[in-house]
């Protein structure tokens, strides 16, 4: 148990950096043969986890496709209520954040802690903007106009009896995605705090940065599919 975070015997820190979380002080868990093996294992684990996330969203995409086939008019009517400009802005914001988080990984690999922190902060600002736009310009006005899911639907000018179903799919799809944005942001905050406090990431220790960034790319990727399906095609 105590050996899981064993200090690295090979690299000894010098000077003021004596905290065990400082990247040069980090070792690897005792059941791995070396740090590379641990890094590979963590990355494989993360990719497997991402595949489960994709399958989770696959259920929503599948429901979208089936009901789109059954009720094309409802889908066309529903998607007219979405403003592509907000969706497009959010797409740009997420793409930008994917770029900055990738730059953050690069900064960690190069041992440039200041650049890592800078990139993470920009990414987090993008995450905040995304959620803000989603809530303030989309969810709240739509819900107050009665465009709510299922039986809560009370919008008086609906064109098609199956429009409530469209809104159910819209809120579930984008809602679960937004939840993932928040989880991803939480992971990045965790990385940021450790980068600021302990300078925890560097050329030999960036697993956490890389895996959180992978998660963030997944969040981006799912939005890339949600955006055209919901906003662009009718």
């Amino acid at each position, binding site marked *: *148990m105590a050996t*899981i975070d064993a200090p690295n015997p090979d690299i000894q820190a010098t000077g003021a950096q004596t905290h065990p979380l400082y990247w040069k002080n980090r070792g690897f*868990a*005792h*059941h*791995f043969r070396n740090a590379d*093996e641990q890094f*590979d*294992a*963590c990355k*494989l*684990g993360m990719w*497997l*986890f991402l*595949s*489960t*996330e994709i*399958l*989770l*969203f*696959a*259920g*929503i995409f*599948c*429901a979208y496709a*089936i*009901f789109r086939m*059954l*009720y094309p008019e*409802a889908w066309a009517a529903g998607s007219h209520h979405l403003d592509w400009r907000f969706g497009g802005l959010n797409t740009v914001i997420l793409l930008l954040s994917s770029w900055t988080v990738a730059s953050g990984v690069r900064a960690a690999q190069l041992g440039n802690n200041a650049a890592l922190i800078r990139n993470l902060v920009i990414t987090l600002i993008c995450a905040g903007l995304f959620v803000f736009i989603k809530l303030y310009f989309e969810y709240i006005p739509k819900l107050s106009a009665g465009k709510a*899911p*299922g*039986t*809560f639907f009370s919008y008086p000018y609906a064109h098609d*009896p*199956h429009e*409530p*179903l469209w809104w*159910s*799919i819209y*809120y*579930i799809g984008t809602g*679960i995605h937004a939840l993932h944005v928040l989880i991803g942001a939480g992971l990045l905050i965790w990385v940021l705090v450790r980068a600021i406090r302990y300078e925890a990431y560097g050329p030999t220790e960036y697993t956490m940065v890389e895996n959180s960034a992978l998660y963030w790319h997944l969040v981006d990727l799912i939005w890339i599919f949600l955006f055209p399906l919901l906003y662009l095609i009718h």
Partner: protein
Amino acid sequence: MTTAETTHDHHDEGSYLTPKYGVMGTIWDWMTTVDHKKIGVMYLFAVLFMFFLGGVAALAVRLELLEPVRVAADGTITGQLFGPANPESIATGNNIFNRLFTLHGAIMVFMFIIPSVPAALGNFFLPLMLGAKDVAFPRLNLFSWYIYVVGSLFGVFSIILGGVDTGWTFYTPYSTTTDADHWRVLLMVLAAFVLGFSSILTGLNFIVTTHKLRAPGMGWFDMPLFIWAIYATSIIQVLATPVIGITLLLLIFERLFKVGIFDPALGGDPVLYQHFFWFYSHPVVYVMILPGMGIISEILSVHARKHIFGYRAIAFSSLGIAAVSFIVWGHHMFTAMGELASTIFSALTFLVAIPTAIKMFNWIATLYKGSIAINTPMLYALSFLFLFSIGGLTGLPLGALATDLHLHDSYFVVAHFHYTMMGGTVIAFLGGIHHWWPKMFGRMYNERAGMIGCVLVFIGFNLTFMTQFFLGTQGMPRRYASYIDEFQTLHVLSTYGSWILLAGFLVHLFNFIHSLVAGPKAPPNPWGGLTLEWETESPPIEHNFHHEVLVQHGPYDFDTVVPPHCDEREFPLPETPASH
């Protein structure tokens, strides 16, 4: 396989079971452990407790079916086990019966059989058989145990609050309309949702462990077949479970917010739920059976002292079953699909029989000319071959469209899946527990008592479920609390069988308790096995092996290798070297 220096025995490192602190300290040590062996043992006790709960419900269901429910001319009711005895109470009694079989199904599927072999025996033996010190992510492993416990508690609370009568499959609209004034259905659905995460994390951990932590010298085809089976299982767990996650989440939204996705009144489709559900739950029946098949490969080879026949065929058939499992879910909805789709799903379903039969023939060929030791694990393995053959072959009439229209939702289906799930997985699980008991706890069990228990389980099982095949073909529908008089003889026999089963399990229980208290100390390798777990102490030391293991021979090379640490009184050295 042999350790680099097996002659150096360091006895300074204690077994993983040795308590190092006081009572509270030891409890705290177990609750916070990241040792895969302790987590495996904690899983073992947790799933066996759930097996007990689900078993009690099963016995109650069988007891209610001992007599048909009848109202006499004077108004007295006979044959009703639950609820008050007046004519208006029949609905109440039926309601209780529904909740009991739902409870039995939900507990047995989600809380017992899915985690049974992989999480309990897999956790303990996967790293040992790979020659690793632990699984790849030990803390994640402990976390998944806690998720399992939380999920199971949700399920148990739901039962205490009155239970659900949706059936374990939570089909809509039962699951969206029944008990509308109460949140216990939500709690039960949430339990299955939470348990899914535990399953995903365990599977993920095992895949990474198998890829990254094999001992030096162990290639993919030097792995024991149990590992191949667990690996195939883990792939299904990782790829199928998220789909049930989103399905149950949609179901929760449906109940809470009436989103309409499964509600025809709002344009939704209840059959869509069934498609989503079985896209997970059909692959998952192979999560239940594949690890059992892995155990059988180990037991047959070790206790018949024969090299496993067709190693690669068995390994690839595990992956084959995992692959086919994803494309057969439609056979649960033959009556709700078009003719073409039904025909395609029927044809795909038959494909499952091929890899399964490959395994079966290879196992039987392994036994041929082996020196078969008749002991409890071997008896269970032989029972598995017999029972699982019946379970598998009776799947074919259910997969064929014409016969399925007659047999679906009848006792034939009940008997079929009990022959595969219980006659397959539970029998293999029991065989595996006996096979690895000396390694896990360092004590031998009483062989005679074990064999008596096995024979009782075998007889009881067949009496309970063989009768149900006949009931099914005669038209007895599943999930009914009563039946016509003609069915009573078979129902009575089936209920008697369940009591014999209980007796068999009790014999095992007392045997295990006796072994823990007073069993003789187990040698490191009581069966003369060649896989790596037999190379360390019984029970294993805290870090599994004294030295880093170096794999020097295959897991089943009984014809060329003398097992190390073997009790030589039982397995004398060969007098003349074999010609090859």
